[in-house]
């Protein structure tokens, strides 16, 4: 029987993978992808808890949907920033975007 902890394990691992991507990638778009993985891991948790712990008002679904929406917003703004940075600096590697360095 697949229970809550199964889902939690998957989401934890997915979260760790995403975090690893965020921590080690140089490319801004790749970092964004890592963030998406982390958000997805959180969403799996929300939906799993809704089914197994607290189905009132399907709160978890609501939270997951809001997260998805905000993820879309974040991707849009983040990618716009990437495009803009690329246009000005011709790189999307975050360690090379260092105009403010003395």
């Amino acid at each position, binding site marked *: 029987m*697949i229970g809550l902890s*199964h889902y939690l*394990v*998957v989401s*934890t*691992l*997915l*979260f*760790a*993978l*995403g*975090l*690893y*991507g965020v*921590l*080690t*990638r*140089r*490319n801004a*778009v*790749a970092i964004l*992808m*890592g963030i*998406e*993985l982390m958000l*997805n891991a959180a*969403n*799996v948790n929300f*939906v*799993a808890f*809704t*089914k*197994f*712990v*607290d*189905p*009132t*008002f*399907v709160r978890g*679904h*609501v939270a*997951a*949907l*809001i997260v*998805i*929406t905000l993820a*879309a*917003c*974040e*991707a*849009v*703004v983040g*990618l*716009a920033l*990437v*495009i803009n940075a*690329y*246009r000005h600096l011709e790189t*999307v590697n975050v*360690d090379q975007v260092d105009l403010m360095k003395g």
Partner: protein
Amino acid sequence: MNAEALAFYALAAMVLVGGGLVVQSRNLVHAAVSLVPTLLGVAGLYVLLHAEFVTAIQILIYVGAITVLILFVILLTEGATGLRVRQRNEQVPLALLVCGGLAVLLLGVLVRVPWGPAAGPLPPYNPGAVGRSFLMPYVLAFEVTSLVILASLVGAIVIARREE
């Protein structure tokens, strides 16, 4: 092993392998394409959790829109040229340590906590229940989200457009 467990393990494998490819691929296009099975796998998990509406939205927004956007931006900026550039920064070993440690710790905590039984059954018709939830108790969150969407829409246009 019953069908549900089979489906769960298949989906979990799909999610984790896909996620691994996303963070590991040297080729950014590959990484972005690997997002597709990951996100679809997550959508599959939602199906197993009886969250049909979230599934549909997950596919529509994440796979259909965000991934396409990411691919688009990769193609507009670097394309495949990333192959010749170092893709990782210098903190790989440390990051591995921290992420691994965090995962182990969280797993240890999560698996041991007794979460207790479900407070009740899921409402039968999902989209309706979600809609009612959005418009009755969580209307403020809903409205604020819509405001954020508007702001990010305007912001993205302002940031990304070519300066005249």
